[in-house]
């Protein structure tokens, strides 16, 4: 029998955000192929892909349409069958320009003939499977998963930490994965553990998702005795419990050193949906061509969890969910704490997106910024033990020495400080600015 563990450490600070997880009981629905998808060649940190198809060429579902020889990169696959209509440069939400392949769907969903189970038996074959699956991390930056797991010196790495915390309000996409595909999640965990030779795995889930915890526990209990050592850790629901460093700390008690990676604390961290999608790829050869997103927010008529092809315009996904009740004040990809506000409903859905939120005026306050009263709420809220108010002042004075002393580079931009601020100061924006000040001065 597997017991459900309590976290070994409590994270500091954070924010008691409202859960707003109204879509938790919405079973995943599959959105049919949209008329057209747009696939940016940069959906990850690292080298952009080069298109491997030409305008006018026929493509099939699962076919590679963009790839790169660079180590830090991930291939891009078509989610529809049809014809390449155009290859054009588009502006991405992050501010960078990238080539994008526009594919017109024929609506037939003909799969490429390269599908089929993948052979994974050791580290090298696992890494190559992850690479060809096109998986990227969902932490916003879209770090290619193959790079994340390709640890140079893995002698000290013994633990896999699976992130099912889903601490962002509204989002229930990872929760649905654990409820609908618990067997696949556990199978994926076992594959990764076996291939990388990891002794221990923790699946961290917040305690506001008991159904997900029970579904996974049932699968674990059914395994024959003597299986791999996998435990579920029931985490207190507190934002940002799902941040990589916080999750490692809560489940293992280890701290990732400043400027270090999870491997420096002997851990590999993977998102729960990523583990499951990887397993699916190894079983079927179907790469990362679609993504479950939670479509929610007060302006959406019919909030639900939708399996969407990557590259679908977010406006099409909202239309699939009954369209909009009212004009939203903000359209966000991702959660309300760290998601990106969009200005264009034609923006394609990217690999790392897990939600599309159309928030009303009441849900997303755009308040007036007021002077800092030095109340210290940001200091108490910072899970990284930083002093956001001091960092803001130091960045205004361009005081690089003080910024370094304040450890500005440790900021993960989780937004707990800005959430807590009674003067409604856009502290995350100030933190980003402070980092550019610190970087500029150091390099110049």
């Amino acid at each position: 029998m597997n017991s459900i563990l309590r976290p070994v450490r409590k994270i500091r600070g954070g924010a008691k955000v409202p859960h707003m997880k109204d879509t938790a009981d919405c079973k995943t629905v599959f959105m049919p192929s949209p008329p057209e998808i747009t696939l940016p060649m940069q959906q990850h940190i690292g080298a952009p892909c080069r298109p491997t198809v030409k305008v006018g060429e026929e493509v099939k579902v699962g076919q590679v349409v963009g790839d790169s020889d660079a180590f830090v990169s991930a291939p891009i696959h078509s989610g529809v069958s049809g014809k390449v209509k155009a290859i054009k440069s588009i502006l991405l939400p992050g501010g960078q320009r990238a080539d994008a392949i526009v594919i017109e769907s024929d609506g037939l969903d003909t799969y490429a003939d390269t599908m089929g189970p993948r052979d994974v038996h050791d580290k090298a074959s696992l890494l190559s499977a992850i690479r060809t699956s096109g998986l990227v991390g969902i932490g916003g930056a879209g770090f290619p998963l193959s790079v994340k797991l390709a640890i140079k010196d893995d002698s000290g790495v013994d633990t896999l930490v699976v992130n099912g915390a889903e601490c962002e309000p509204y989002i229930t996409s990872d929760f649905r994965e654990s409820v609908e595909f618990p067997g696949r999640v556990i199978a994926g965990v076992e594959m990764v553990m076996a291939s990388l030779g990891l002794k221990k795995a923790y699946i961290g889930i917040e305690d506001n998702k008991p159904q997900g915890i029970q579904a996974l526990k049932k699968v674990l209990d059914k395994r024959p005795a003597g299986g791999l050592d996998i435990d579920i850790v029931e985490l207190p629901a507190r934002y940002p419990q799902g941040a990589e460093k916080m999750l490692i700390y809560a489940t293992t008690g280890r701290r990732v050193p400043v400027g270090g990676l999870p491997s420096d604390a002997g851990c590999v961290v993977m998102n729960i949906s990523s583990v499951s999608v990887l397993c699916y790829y190894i079983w079927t050869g179907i790469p990362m061509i679609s993504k479950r997103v939670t479509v929610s927010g007060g302006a959406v008529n019919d909030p639900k969890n939708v399996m969407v092809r990557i590259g679908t315009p977010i406006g099409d996904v909202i239309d699939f969910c009954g369209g909009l009740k009212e004009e939203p004040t903000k359209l966000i990809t991702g959660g309300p704490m760290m998601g990106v506000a969009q200005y264009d409903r034609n923006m394609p859905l990217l690999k790392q997106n897990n939600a599309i939120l159309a928030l009303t005026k009441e849900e997303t306050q755009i308040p007036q910024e007021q002077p800092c009263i030095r109340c210290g709420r940001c200091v108490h809220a910072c899970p990284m033990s930083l002093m956001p108010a001091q960092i803001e002042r130091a960045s205004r004075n361009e005081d690089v020495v003080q910024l370094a002393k304040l450890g500005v580079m440790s900021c993960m931009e989780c937004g707990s400080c800005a959430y807590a601020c009674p003067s409604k100061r856009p502290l995350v924006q100030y933190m980003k600015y402070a980092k550019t000040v610190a970087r500029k001065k150091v390099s110049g």
Partner: protein
Amino acid sequence: MSNLIVTASPHITDKRTTKSIMLDVVIALIPAMIASIVLFGPRALLVLAVTVAACMIGEYVTRRILKRSNSLSDLTAVITGILLALNLPVSIPLWMAALGGLIAIVIVKQFFGGVGYNFVNPAIAGRIVLLVSFSYYMSNWTEPFAYLSATAADTVSAATPLAVAESGGQLPSLLDMFLGVRAGSMGETSILALLIGGIYLCIRRVITPIIPVCFIGVTVLLTTLGGGDPLYELMSGGLVLGAVFMATDYTTSPMNAKGQIVFGIGCGVITSVIRLFASLPEGVSYSILLMNILVPHIENLTMPKPFGAKEAAANESK
């Protein structure tokens, strides 16, 4: 869809605002205000009205002249006015009370940039300016309930328990001390009223008990070691008023817990030294003022280490 707003994350915030926090402070001060009016009569209300009005007018006019936005609605000027009045004797000439309010708001607060930028507590600075300028009027104490007697009450002068203790006279009972039936500044005498306010502030999470506990604890400990009676030391002077409402002022106290401990202890040490050795009977105001000035240094020296800094240092030394 042209009206979509784009900002940096997060896209939701806590409901707490500066105004709601300051409103909580005003609410926490209500018991002390009521106690001052009950103990020292309607004139206490008059003094309160004068200082609050002086602070609000001072704030409005200064910001108007300096072409800054009107900030009266954040209630910080109201709080300064209330705190200043509670630190004055009820017999203070009204023009002096008004002057104290103007000094606090115009010079100490607005000239340094307004809310969040003043480096010392405006009410304390206002009180100290009045104390050194008009020391006779600032130490002209009135007996509680003197306003009820038919004779010309305002001529009755009394001594505060600290002054009585220094001269070896008869002290009021502990119960009287707790309820506030003793001579002193309008708002400092009723420990009961101040505690109600302090507990309210802690429950509403406006303040943490760190600074008041360190401040009061150290003062009581050191003055007792110096030969004082712990309960009288606790309840006399402006210790509780200062520790709960003045030393916890956000702008002029450290933001981090470790810094708040240092700040509270520092206030306690200075207060004790003044009470035990200086010719002044009371040192709460001066101790807070001095510690206010040290806040940037305290924060620098007690800066928390970022998560994982210890591990990074350990790796480097390997």
